[in-house]
């Protein structure tokens, strides 16, 4: 651990002496990255810092992004990765041992399945799929391939999440009957932004891939696609999956029986999409209720008003008979005992900054899982079940009624219209993956 910290903090100095990294390093995984944006490179830096990976290939739909990423990789590790515009060509020519997938959600399924079929272990970002049956197909492909899949749910391994979960399981919170998950921020009305041509170096058609093609807009790229429902599932998909995953990590139950979700855009306004301009279209607030056998779980997010009236803006409250446990982000975890004569218990977070994640630990677990031939901590089994929850919330929100979920058969009971939304049509020539 100490060594890794040292390597990270001196990455630039090492860059001047890349030969150091090549020495006495027998097991090096040929590693490729698909999607060379901000988060993809956060993961790739872990691969470089681990000294157990040789970064051999990069893929992106933007030639400039590729060139910049290749230059950065060279400064981190001395590696000189080859660059590709199409992930299929990369897989065929490079035959990587490990593929990191950090594209927008609508690309996860096809790229994960292709990489697994090409024999690679896969680190893919959360949520697994954009629709439920994509996630099921990823799960099946992982099982068929026998390869390790780690999903970027780094809160499964973050130090204060692990200790918070230990505290919860120790019985000190008592019997938990309700969980409340939330992510609140400030915000207001959203103005449309004019559409424009994509960057000259970018293949926008390939970026859209199997999803519908929207006119290019600076709100969408880079990074803003999280709030466009063609490519992601808004805050519930982006943040919700992390906290819903904490609930499934804690409970012995495999899935909720009933889901109801409501929400809209009363503050940010009606979505705009025309030839000239557009806004995002994800809800500015949502409340989703997940009914389990032994407890109720509520998700809520709000992108207005902030959360000044409460102690925390983000995280999970576990309501037990002995008190309330809040597991948060940079604020670590806090236990508020029911009996106000008892002292509060706190634990600080131990996140990697500036982006507040736990990727070093998650990456180390991924490599160890490959070597020890065991499932990763955020395995496709766990992550598939967790990723399905926000996707089901979105289905309930779209159909405007509660849905009953059979998590064993992975179907919605007695609701053909809702079941149709477990998948969506792909844009030709892309084919929706088979479950």
């Amino acid at each position, binding site marked *: 651990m100490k060594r890794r910290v040292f390597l990270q903090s001196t990455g630039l100095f090492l860059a001047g002496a890349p030969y150091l990294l090549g020495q006495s390093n027998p097991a090096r995984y040929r590693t490729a990255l698909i999607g060379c944006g901000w988060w993809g490179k956060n993961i790739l830096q872990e691969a470089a810092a681990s000294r157990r990976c040789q970064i051999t290939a990069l893929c992106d739909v933007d030639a400039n992004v590729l060139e910049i990423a290749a230059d950065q990789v060279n400064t981190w590790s001395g590696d000189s990765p080859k660059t590709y515009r199409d992930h299929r060509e990369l897989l065929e020519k490079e035959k990587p041992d490990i593929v990191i997938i950090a594209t927008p959600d609508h690309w996860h399924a096809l790229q994960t399945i292709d990489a697994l079929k090409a024999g690679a272990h896969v680190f893919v970002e959360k949520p697994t799929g954009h629709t439920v049956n994509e996630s099921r197909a990823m799960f099946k492909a992982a099982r068929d391939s026998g390869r390790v899949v780690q999903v970027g749910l780094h809160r499964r391994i973050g130090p204060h999440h692990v200790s918070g979960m230990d505290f919860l399981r120790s019985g000190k919170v008592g019997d938990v009957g309700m969980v409340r998950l939330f992510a609140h921020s400030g915000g*207001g009305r959203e103005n449309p932004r004019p559409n424009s041509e994509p960057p000259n170096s970018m293949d926008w058609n390939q970026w859209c891939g199997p999803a519908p093609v929207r006119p290019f807009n600076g709100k969408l790229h880079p990074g803003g696609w999280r709030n466009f429902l063609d490519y992601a599932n808004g805050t519930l998909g982006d943040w919700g999956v992390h906290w819903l995953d904490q609930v499934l990590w804690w409970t012995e139950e495999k899935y909720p029986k009933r889901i109801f979700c409501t929400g809209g855009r009363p503050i940010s306004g009606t979505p705009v999409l025309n030839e000239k301009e557009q806004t995002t279209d994800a809800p500015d607030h949502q409340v989703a209720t997940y009914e389990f056998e032994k407890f109720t779980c509520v998700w809520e997010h709000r992108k207005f008003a902030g959360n000044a009236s409460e102690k925390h803006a983000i995280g999970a409250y576990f309501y037990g008979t002995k008190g309330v446990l809040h597991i948060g982000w940079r604020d670590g975890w806090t236990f508020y005992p029911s009996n106000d004569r008892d002292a509060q218990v706190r634990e600080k977070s131990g996140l990697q900054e500036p982006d507040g994640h736990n990727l070093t630990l998650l990456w180390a677990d991924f490599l160890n899982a490959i070597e020890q031939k065991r499932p990763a901590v955020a395995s496709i089994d766990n992550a598939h079940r967790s990723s399905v929850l926000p996707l089901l919330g979105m289905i309930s929100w779209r159909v405007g009624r509660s849905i009953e979920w059979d998590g064993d058969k992975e179907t919605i009971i007695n609701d053909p219209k809702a079941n149709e939304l477990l998948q969506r049509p792909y844009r030709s020539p892309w084919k929706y993956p088979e479950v």
Partner: protein
Amino acid sequence: MLMNPYPFPLPVRSRTLISILTVLASLTVFSRADDWPQWRGPNRDGVSQEQGWIDQFPNSGPPIAWKATVGLGFSSVVVGKGKAYTAGHANGSDTVFCFDALSGKELWKHSYPSELGDKFFEGGTTGSPTLAGDRLFWLSRWGDLYCYNANSGEIIWSRQIVKETQARVPSWGFSGAPTLYKNLLILNVGDAGMALEAATGKDVWKSGDGDAGYNTPLPVTRGEKVELWFANGEAYFSVEPETGKEKWRFKWLTQYGVNAADPIPYEDKAFVSSGYGKGAALFKIPATSDAEPEVIWKNRVLRTQLNGAVLVGKHLYGVDGDTTGRAELKCLEIETGKEAWAEPGFGTGGIIVADGKIIALAASGELMIAPVSPEGFKPTARAQVLGGKCWTAPVLANGLAYCRNSRGDLVAVDLRKN
């Protein structure tokens, strides 16, 4: 190399020249040297010619002449003819402000609806106004362009550049200030800038479709001619002011296309620097537009994400690193790229130079004054004048140092001797 509006070489330091200066000042525009009418100052190099201000603070800190609240953003202050101008964002609108430069009395303001634009930061205005005579020019992140009567705030003309020209808005919006060159107003909009008639706002020339960079067009005199130096999403380049015809181009790819710092001319060369780990380079300007620039050196000692470095003699002073990391204030030799010193803990603040001293505003809001020296950064004065975060370089004009933070707290720190 830089355009120098003054009829004699500056700076003038010796007291023996005072009588000559007094005569010259009455005949020339010397008094403008105390103003700061545009981004990076009168000569667009981050240097003011102002002298005779304090470089030590009393124990109680320097006096604050006035304070104002201007809204969210990073727009710097410009000062001329006794007025100070800046901009900020609040409640769905941008506002351009005019204050009395010495008293802080609000003289006029103008608001228009605008997007907060808080992608990966708190948003708000990022560009700066430009004062030219009795006109003030302002370009918003989303293409709202205004020409005001600088005295009254009356709108002389205005345009919505994006809607009218279909120009592509770069990821964080336009942030370069409009640049006045003769009768032309030059904008960093489009692949290689555009020019309008300053008097009317009518198009003179436009460039192709592409992502603009975030710097302010820089007029540079080379030989007999003036060129305009720009950054766009993938290069630094130069164009002819009258036609927009490209003279040379230096490919410079930076993450997210963020080439923000103004390039710095040095002899027959140009210095450029960008953040996100990119680094800096000094290259020889090619003779023709199809020739490859010759790179003298290129390294990662100075990675400028926001505020451009200041060149004094053969040394550059500027910030290395990004807002999300541990940015340092650094000094390096322009001819070799070698680091002379580094001052940790500075963050992505900004500096200017006046009278052989650095006036530095750290990201934390600490104002420091230190001699310009390649030997090290040794402040003679330090004071916490604002809360963070300050990503905007301070501005010195007529003895006041104007500092702002992202929330829009603006303070005029009084550096006058008595």
